């Protein structure tokens, strides 16, 4: 598989991984670019015998996202913009906001009540349809811990959004 093919095949999935983790579309685009940059640099070291390509991609995506969040936190210390303004819901791109479907609105509302880690697990489990063993390998958590965290996240969603959904 060439990198161009990988980009075309996995763009939507990687973008969604980033989008589940980020507050805004713009940030998700930045993070997606960072993930693909790392994938490009590591592309020659991928060994298909060792792990399936999905696990490899999302392991890299996980590590890039951790770095990205850390850098974002450091940047926010030196930022003149108040923290509350930075965390406003994703209205930074009005054109994109208009395009958004009602299902996307509901998904965004659901994600807002979850922590970053819970969002990642929800994405990997529900959207990427990965098994809990794969998720554990990607995130570095134990399989039972993944199960517990997923259960808690869904419970939280039911409790918070029960009336809205």
């Amino acid at each position, binding site marked *: 598989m060439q990198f161009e093919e990988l*980009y075309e095949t996995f*763009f*939507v999935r990687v*973008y*969604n991984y980033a*989008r589940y983790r980020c507050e805004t*579309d713009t940030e*998700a*685009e*930045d993070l*997606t*670019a*960072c993930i*693909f*940059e790392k994938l*490009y640099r590591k592309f020659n070291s991928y060994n298909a015998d060792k792990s399936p390509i999905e696990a490899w991609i999302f392991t890299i995506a996980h590590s890039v996202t951790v770095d990205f969040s850390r850098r974002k936190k450091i940047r926010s210390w030196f930022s003149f913009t108040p923290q509350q303004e930075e965390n406003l819901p994703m209205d930074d791109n009005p054109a*994109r906001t208009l*395009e958004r*479907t009602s*299902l*996307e609105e*509901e*998904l965004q509302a*659901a994600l807002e009540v979850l922590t970053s880690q819970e969002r990642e697990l*929800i994405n990997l489990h*529900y*959207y990427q349809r990965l098994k809990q063993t794969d998720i554990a390998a990607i995130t570095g958590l134990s399989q039972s811990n993944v199960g517990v965290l997923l259960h808690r996240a*869904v419970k939280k*969603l*039911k409790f918070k*959004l*029960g009336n809205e*959904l």
Partner: protein
Amino acid sequence: MKYKNKLNTVLESGFQPSTTTKERVRMVLERKLTCHAPRRFQWALAVGSLLVLLGIGLYVRQPHPVELLGPSALHATNIYVAQNFGECGPRGLESQPDYIHFQ
């Protein structure tokens, strides 16, 4: 059951990136891959800059005149100060609040 299905539908739906999003990410990626300086180079640049700054700092710093004097010259200076600014010699001057003992 119906509620659970609805929740699953929402969580599984995902976000649909527009074609402009895809193109924008591609452009950012291309820029990163072509223009971005290698990380090792950035580290080398940072460490090099620090060393240059340190060198400039050491070069600019002027030694205090007293640092240039040897022990015998310091002793002579103490005696000179005592003789010119006090009547009791160096020992008597040590009790004075503004006495400076060069070392």
